[in-house]
């Protein structure tokens, strides 16, 4: 591997969080973001070709070294790491609506889900999965929510566009009342 790739590998190894490309670029004053990206690809390819137990993954705002998923059970059995808790169905529903409709207010989410979402929004906010991105112009100027980079990390997404587009889903979203036969 190139010296830059080795440097980045060391940094990624030491870090407990994904590191953004521009932060990685600061490690070497000579390196441009483009060179960093190329070096990251180099590490990824090396791991792939040589067959490593870890992989370099891009998600959210940055890059991170993760163990390969096939070792999840072994690592867990040895109690070296524990899978984080799953989000509840209600929390996932709320997140899904925020992800697709952001910026979105609480009332609108409740309209879609048909239940009160106050406490769920609070806990999603506390876990950093959503954030307040502004206020609506509507009555009472309600808070508007959007997803965060922690949301992307939670689902190992690079960006929101990696989610299926609404029209790719089996049922296209109807904005107008559907004419009923």
């Amino acid at each position, binding site marked *: 591997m190139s010296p830059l790739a080795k440097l980045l590998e060391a940094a990624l190894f030491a870090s*407990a969080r994904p590191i953004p490309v521009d932060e990685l670029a600061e490690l070497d004053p000579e390196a441009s973001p483009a060179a960093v990206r190329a070096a990251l690809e180099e590490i990824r390819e090396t791991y792939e070709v040589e067959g490593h137990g870890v992989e370099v*993954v891009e998600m959210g705002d940055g890059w991170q070294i993760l163990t390969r998923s096939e070792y999840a059970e072994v690592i867990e059995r040895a109690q070296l*790491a524990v899978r984080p808790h*799953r989000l509840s169905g209600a929390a996932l*529903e709320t997140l899904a609506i925020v992800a697709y409709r952001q910026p979105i207010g609480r009332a609108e989410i409740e309209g879609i889900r048909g239940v009160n979402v106050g406490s769920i929004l609070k806990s999603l906010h506390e876990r950093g999965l959503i954030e307040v991105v502004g206020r609506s112009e509507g009555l009472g100027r309600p808070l508007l929510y959007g997803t965060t980079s922690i949301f992307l990390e939670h689902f190992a997404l690079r960006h929101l566009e990696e989610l299926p587009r609404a029209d790719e889903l089996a*049922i296209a979203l109807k904005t107008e009342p*559907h004419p009923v*036969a």
Partner: protein
Amino acid sequence: MDARLAHTNGHSADDSPAPFVVELSEYSGPLDLLLALIRDEKVDIYDIPIARIAEQFLQRIRTLGLDQAADYLEMAARLLRIKAQLLLPRSGSEDAWEDPRAELVRRLLEYQQVREIVDHLERLADDRRRRFSRGYVPELPAPPQAPLALSLIELLAAVDRVLRVTQSPDLHDVIPRPLDVDGAIATVRGVLALRERVPWHDVIPSEPERWQILSVLLALLEMARRGELSLEQLAPFSNVWITRESAGQAA
């Protein structure tokens, strides 16, 4: 509920139906429950037999706790209203008639799409959860309670061993120094009988101990509560002044 149980058995012979409370807790809301009913009943979402679905919806939410039920009750009311609207004679031409179920169908479709996204997100999250990052600090699980295998004799032997080692137990005396609030009240009353207004350090004994200061403080607060005196402090950290109140004199 009996009809519902019979129905479930008729359609899915795979496993015995779970208790309803358990099943209901799996619904994330009234729309989820409604979609489940529509699926179970195999009815067309665009042509929902409202009377039947409303009936079953009511049957199912009857087993819900009241704290959860508000959202479900609202949906039940909505279903009953649609049912009533469908019973009304249609006025005007057939074209102008708007199906009262239309809004509900739109919401159901929208919600179904959310469920689809949830399935997708769930797969992504599960995949992500299988990959561990460096420095991930797991929450420590509570250690499992080992079954206790201990006989009385072993326990007594252990007590005996401990007592043998601690020849002189490390005891220390606690000297009770109770506050004397009543005494302090008497002192303050005495001072106030002579002078109408005094600074608070005048009612504290010279070279006081901590408990004496505390006693006076509690006495002053108690007497202020009873209306025997008033307390004022003109500036932060300045002297506290005690003024005799005539209201308390009579009492």
